[in-house]
């Protein structure tokens, strides 16, 4: 026996959740040829037709691009903490975090959340992250196809990987979906919304493996000074597209915004590809050019993080290669390393 839900049922579910005050986000057609995960104003914004791999990731729900840590004001020679300026901040501890729901996420996006859980809880429990994470329910839609830049299979995932999802939908071909609840949150969400059926959805087999992460890991461990990096990274212009559209990249910068007399302290995304990321006050910069920075990105994803957490810091969504203006990204580098 399987539980199924029609597409209209799913949209109704989204409508109910929005009415209940939950912030629902999912893939939406922002412009011709551009699909992004975004907060849905109405259920019809949710894009379900055809295979869609949004250019950004769902990490924004749990790790926003700009988050206010706290506000402050300098009065005379002392500093007072004030409650923050933006109203969606978590500065005051008791304020309830609004519930969040992600619908029709891709498995490679959902799989990133457990990775971020490790990051934000290994030496310091990041309370901002945790409270958002706890309030978030992720409903994934298994892939019934794959894009040219997808390589989830190469990093140990597959189009129906349940990792990080609270519930998973499977296309049934007739516009309705089979629902498989994975966690209590998933079950609570779909409780009473599905019908019995005997139809069973199935997922795409996924792209064939494009590289072996182990060979990549071995290469980066031994070729720190290899001319490969300077040769390969020549075409990298040093922007932050790969890091900011990657579901797993999690580096951030702390910034004081507003007049120096005090306004608020923010956390914002940062990227290892930027010069200021490793700039020293003396003016020296240990990673002065793109070769060292590109190497660092691959090193972190395929060696440093796996050494610490035993899993690859990449879910194979392909966003970095898909969005890179010069067509580089992990897929290009990894395949070049593997077949080089």
């Amino acid at each position, binding site marked *: 026996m399987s539980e199924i839900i029609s597409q209209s049922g799913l949209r109704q579910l989204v409508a109910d959740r929005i009415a209940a005050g939950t912030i629902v986000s999912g893939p939406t057609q922002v412009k011709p040829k551009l699909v992004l995960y975004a907060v849905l104003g109405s259920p019809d914004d949710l894009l379900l037709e055809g295979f869609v791999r949004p250019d950004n990731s769902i990490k924004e729900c749990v790790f926003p691009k700009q988050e206010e840590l706290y506000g402050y004001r300098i009065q005379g020679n002392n500093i007072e903490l004030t409650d923050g300026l933006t109203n969606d901040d978590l500065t005051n501890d008791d304020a309830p975090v609004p519930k969040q729901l992600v619908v029709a996420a891709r498995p490679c996006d959902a799989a990133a959340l457990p990775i971020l859980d490790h990051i934000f809880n290994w030496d310091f429990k990041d309370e901002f992250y945790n409270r958002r994470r706890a309030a978030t329910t992720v409903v994934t839609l298994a892939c019934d196809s794959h894009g040219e830049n997808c390589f989830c299979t190469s990093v140990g995932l597959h189009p129906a990987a349940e990792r990080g999802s609270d519930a998973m939908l499977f296309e049934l071909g007739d516009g309705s979906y089979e629902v498989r609840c994975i966690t209590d949150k998933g079950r609570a969400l779909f409780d009473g919304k599905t019908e019995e059926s005997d139809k069973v959805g199935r997922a795409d087999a996924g792209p064939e493996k494009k590289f072996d992460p182990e060979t990549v890991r071995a290469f980066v461990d031994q070729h720190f000074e290899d001319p490969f990096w300077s040769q390969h990274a*020549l075409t990298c212009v040093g922007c932050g597209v790969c890091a900011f559209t990657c579901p797993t990249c999690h580096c951030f910068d702390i910034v004081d915004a507003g007049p120096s007399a005090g306004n608020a302290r923010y956390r914002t995304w940062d990227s290892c590809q930027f010069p200021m990321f490793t700039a020293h006050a003396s003016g020296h910069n240990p990673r002065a050019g793109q070769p060292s920075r590109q190497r660092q990105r691959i090193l972190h994803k395929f060696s440093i993080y796996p050494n610490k957490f035993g899993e690859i810091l990449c879910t194979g969504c392909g966003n970095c290669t898909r969005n890179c203006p010069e067509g580089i990204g992990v897929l290009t580098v990894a395949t070049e390393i593997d077949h080089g």
Partner: protein
Amino acid sequence: MSDDSTRDGTMTENKGFEPKIVAYVCNWCTYLGADLAGTTRLEYPPNVRIIRLPCTGRIDFNLIVKGFEIGADAVLVSGCHPGDCHYTAGNYHARRRWILFRELLDTLGFDLRRIHFTWISAAEGKKWQQVITEMTEQTRQLGPYTDLYANGSAQDSANDLPSGPPTPFEFKTLPAEGALRESCRKLLADGTVKVVIGYGQRGPAILTRAEDAGRLVWNNRCVSNLTTYLKRKEIKALGKPAVVVKPCDEKSLVVLEKESQLDRKNIHVIGMACEGVGEPKCTFCTARTPRFADETLGEAAGPASLADPPPNRFAALMAMAPAERMAFWAKQFDRCVKCYACRQVCPMCYCERCIADKNRPIAIDPAPSAKGNFAWQIARAFHLAARCVGCGECSRACPAGIDLALLNIALHKAAQVNFGYDAGVDPAAEPVVGSYALQDKEDFIG
């Protein structure tokens, strides 16, 4: 803006709306004019806060934006009459900048009625009193500048620009590919150049070995503007480069040479005739073959007449009311994550350390907030005023699909209309920024 309760009376008690006005004035004329208004006891409303600077030449565009960021309802910029500047030409340079900057702010939907430019001499205490009194009254009528950055609901109702049907595009390799590979192989082999910057399978390809020439491709999706790589230290270190350029990319070389960033003599330019690479810019492009290349490959038929030309998005934008435009841009910039791809792909952005990365002082708010994104896009667009050649890379590279090119088009048009200057066309033409003309228009200056 922080509701600073402990510091009351910043303005008078709020018996009705009291506009807050920031005035940037030059030290030698307007500041003395304001002093004269004092010595002759000419009363005017107390709403203005004067910031004294040596010259209008020193008042840069970002200060005007900063004024609005800290909550001013109107900003005044005033200095010596043309010809009277204590430093001979500060006000001429300023006037030219203001002409361009007003066009940018208008395109972004700023309320130009809140930005005033005047010439007030040291002998015109009366005029200072008049300007401040009129400005305060006019701003009081306009009310507080609440729809700055269209915070609140205005954004949701912002409508998008018509984008027209997707232009049919099918990928095809172009015949000149073979000639390109052969030419590059010969160049690398005989050592004329040390590195070739061309197009590869998945993106640009930078080759140093002759035998890699086979990796070069030439098709109707070779989109990137390769001239952006000429500024890179790593590439300069490799020696004399050869660069493959389309006619639109080539214009960047003209601007870069004019700004002493490259020496045209030790660059080998391979110009490719081009019939379009499937980007929005190609629909209007008429430059089929490069003009200054060392060698030109392939040929291109004349511009195909477009059955139904795509809607002119810039005209559609400018047809909107200012508040509507501001809402449009606020919605677009809300998607910006400050990945700076627009900066990194642009051949004209070659600063060692960008103003956005400067933190003493924080000129551009680094957080991707509404304020931070507007400040960044204003700075980026204005630094490209009369320099951007319209290669469209910024719009293409933006992961959030923001219509950045519209801002550059606005300034491109402003430079053409006001100064008859077309960036990247005439190597000998004097650059707009950094020069001035006595008869620049000043109909907007009081």
